[in-house]
């Protein structure tokens, strides 16, 4: 288990740079062209008045939001003014993700990253591997627990994502989930329109193999159920994470559904201390 200030600093870079890249490539001004009247504020987003959304959801309002987010995420990724910038990045990403979900639906790809931002905002993730450290030179003396626990907490959050997803499916009715038509009909539905982000058509191959698909779906459920083992058993970890890469790529090619933010956070399972010791 990584337990150094360096490892937590790398975790900060992984999480914050994931959102930085995602914000950089997104056209905020295009969102500003959308009619605010189709917005359905989700959860805490309901606390903000309509007059605020009227001003924000404009090309200039969204461009200003993007500039502020890029500056904050650049500071938090590089570890400058980390105590403040990790908190501002967390709040800005939380707001932005809530805004996007108010247009569409509460999807889950970025949510694990949002929870990791909370963890990093309240832990000493700028003590090393940061511009703050380079600037100040002096080392802060903290116990290893101060750095090891936040990393463990982020890994546990990822384990919760998969484990709870499995349990919810089982609660909803595992027999329906293991029916031969479950996967082909869902996959085909997500491949019919041109409103998904990709337009792969592999789903249309699935019906001819549908007798075998319940086994595949059962394996995915088992993989989700046993994902928490990746946190505690290093030998199993890379098999479980490898299964995750295969799973997420499969949902991309067969269902046009992808979780790139969640995949990027698999890097939180790397023992970065090992790389540092080999220097």
């Amino acid at each position: 288990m990584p337990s150094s200030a360096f490892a937590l600093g790398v975790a900060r870079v992984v999480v914050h740079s994931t959102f930085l890249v995602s914000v950089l490539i997104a056209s905020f001004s295009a969102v500003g062209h959308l009619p605010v009247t189709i917005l359905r504020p989700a959860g805490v987003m309901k606390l903000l008045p309509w007059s605020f959304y009227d001003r924000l959801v404009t090309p200039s309002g969204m461009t200003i939001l993007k500039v502020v987010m890029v500056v904050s995420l650049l500071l938090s990724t590089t570890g400058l003014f980390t105590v403040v910038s990790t908190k501002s990045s967390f709040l800005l990403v939380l707001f932005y993700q809530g805004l996007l979900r108010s247009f569409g639906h509460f999807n889950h790809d970025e949510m694990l990253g949002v929870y990791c931002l909370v963890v990093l905002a309240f832990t000493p993730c700028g003590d090393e591997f940061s511009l703050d450290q380079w600037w100040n030179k002096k080392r802060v003396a903290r116990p290893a627990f101060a750095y090891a626990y936040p990393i463990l907490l982020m890994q546990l959050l990822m384990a919760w994502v998969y484990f709870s997803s499995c349990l919810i499916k089982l609660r909803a009715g595992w027999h329906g989930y293991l029916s031969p038509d479950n996967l082909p009909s869902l996959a085909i539905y997500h491949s019919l329109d041109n409103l998904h982000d990709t337009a792969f058509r592999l789903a249309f191959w699935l019906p001819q193999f549908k007798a075998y698909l319940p086994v595949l779906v059962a394996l995915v459920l088992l993989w989700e159920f046993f994902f928490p083992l990746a946190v505690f058993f290093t030998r199993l970890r890379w098999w479980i994470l490898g299964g995750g890469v295969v799973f997420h790529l499969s949902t991309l090619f067969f269902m046009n559904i992808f979780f790139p933010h969640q995949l990027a956070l698999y890097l939180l399972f790397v023992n970065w201390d090992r790389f540092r010791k080999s220097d």
Partner: protein
Amino acid sequence: MNWLKIKYAVLTVAIFLPLIWAFVYVRNAYPVAAWNVMMAPGLLEHGRTYWVLRGETVSGATLDIPAISLTNALYARTWTMVNATVDNQAFKITNPHPANAELLRQAGGLEQLPLGARLPDLLRAWGNLYNERLAPTSPQRLKAIRLDMYRWEGGSYAGYDNFIQTWRQEL
């Protein structure tokens, strides 16, 4: 050390307590998430409705327009945005936008509102975004943009594209 342990315990509880609540009640209340992705199994018997976004160019061609190419920030949420807009869901929330509340009043209630009451605004926005990227004289510019609604009736792996209706917006 004790202070640190207390701080981390509070952080852990503050994150996991809402997540456990969401899991128990299978409720998503942003930012509290229940991972209920694909919770409902796909049933072949159930019909499904879907949409295709298309543009009509000034040169007379009809193009499929992937929505992600217009509003990429929405990533993975575009299809549900269209579902919700067609279903007038922005009018069904407890505190609708003042312009929606006024439109509801003028229409005489939700039942009187046509399907996709705000769809022309969305299509106009998408059409303008598409045209903004082209030269004013380009033959690829759109004169109209439309959303074609189809239905897969289910029951078999065939007949995916039964046309239902179109919303068309002149630009």
